[in-house]
């Protein structure tokens, strides 16, 4: 080809269809037109965080470019085989725990079933009374009559413990015990406000 055509070809701007690879130059960082107070610096920070520059010189917090993950993983795990062995050991450990728990639950359930069937064979009245469903929304007539007579702390105590519901004092296990420990000096006469 003749040199004029080559120079023309070189002068033509290179069209790239990879728009995502266009370098993002933030407004304030562009060469000659650095304006000091273009916008609020907080807004500027938010904009840079939401739309980080895609110049490939730093790891992106949005996860767009993370070149050193492989190297970090290599430092974190000993090897692929070792990692798989560790995973298998863990699943085995979980399986042992699960099976032990399942066995315990089955033993307890068998005890419950045996108790109810024995009661069935022993006395029908006792069996039926044991099977009564307690509806926490309904109060029996006896309870309503008793409640009318109670006042103050006693009434609050009866009101707070709803038949058929969990009491709110059932504590969730924590990592460390409470400051004052277990309340050994509890008395039914001084119940807290419900």
């Amino acid at each position: 080809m003749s040199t004029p055509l080559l120079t023309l070809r070189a002068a033509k701007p290179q069209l790239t269809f990879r728009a995502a690879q266009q370098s993002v130059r933030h407004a304030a960082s562009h060469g000659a037109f650095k304006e000091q107070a273009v916008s609020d610096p907080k807004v500027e920070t938010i904009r840079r965080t939401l739309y980080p520059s895609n110049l490939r010189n730093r790891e992106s917090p949005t996860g767009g470019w993370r070149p050193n993950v492989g190297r970090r993983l290599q430092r974190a795990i000993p090897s692929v085989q070792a990692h798989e062995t560790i995973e298998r050991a863990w699943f085995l450990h979980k399986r042992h725990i699960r099976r032990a728990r399942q066995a315990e639950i089955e033993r307890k359930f068998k005890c419950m079933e045996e108790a109810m069937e024995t009661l069935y064979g022993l006395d029908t009245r006792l069996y039926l009374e044991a099977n009564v469903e307690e509806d926490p929304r309904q109060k029996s007539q006896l309870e309503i009559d008793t409640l009318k007579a109670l006042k103050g702390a006693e009434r609050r105590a009866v009101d707070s413990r709803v038949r058929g519901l969990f009491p709110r004092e059932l504590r969730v296990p924590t990592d460390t015990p409470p400051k004052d420990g277990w309340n050994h000096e509890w008395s039914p006469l001084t119940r807290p406000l419900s």
Partner: protein
Amino acid sequence: MFSRNALRAFRAQPKVHRVHAARALATAAESVPAPVAVPGEAPAPTPARSQWKKPVDNKRGEKDIVQTAVILNRSPTLSRTATAFERAYYSYQSRIQRALYNPLPTEFYFKPGSLLEGIFMKEENERERKAFGRPNLNPNFYKKEKAVELLPGQEEPPKLMPRITEADKKKDIKSLDRKGERNLYLLIQGKDEAGENVWRLPQSDVTETEVLYDAVQRELRSPYGFGMDTWVVSRKPVGVWRPTLPQDSADTRRFLFFYKAHILAGQVRPDGKSILDFAWLTKEEIEPRVDQYYWSGVKDMLSDF
């Protein structure tokens, strides 16, 4: 199945018409009265569920001894300690997560060059060093007290109580602070029918008119249980023990129904007469103290941990 209506119908009938009430429990097809359990015979084989629709009218015989016992449980107050394997695995997994995490945009969360950013970066470097170092299997290694410099206006971090309490160190079996991770059960030393001192779960007789649940409630409100805030989980028993004791005659049947309850606050107050001594024990601590025959009937109802 049995419903509240059936119970109401049953209760409303006077004794004379009990047979008709039994019919009320029958399904359309069944009209044969069931045989009443005769004391002295071997107990009938446990009925399969399909047979529960048959009309029955069993009543406890006069020679039957029906008692209830309560499994009073203090649930764990502390989370479980991780084993060495679990701790190693968790630190291994957190190391992998650190490797995979995207970097934190600190210029967004902290003002560049501020004091807070400096503190955060220092802590972050510490965590990075810990994660990529050897996993230390000694759980106390990272719990050393470090002098923490407080920023102006920052409160002191709350002082945490140690997991091993005073009661653990003294091995005080009456304390409810002991063994926070485990399930503790109340064991009572009382006189049994033969007059001997035995360790067993709290027990009481069921009178002719009352129901098992009422017997349990009565027991928990007795003088020794008055200082405890308890909650019985259900009206249904969780277990039964049918012993044959040497002092019983051939036609006596014994039923000991167990109920599950939780203690929420308070402590046992032994009166020295019926209750001589008590202890709050884990499952393996109960085993050597109780009678072996009793233990064989009870052990499956208690939690292992």
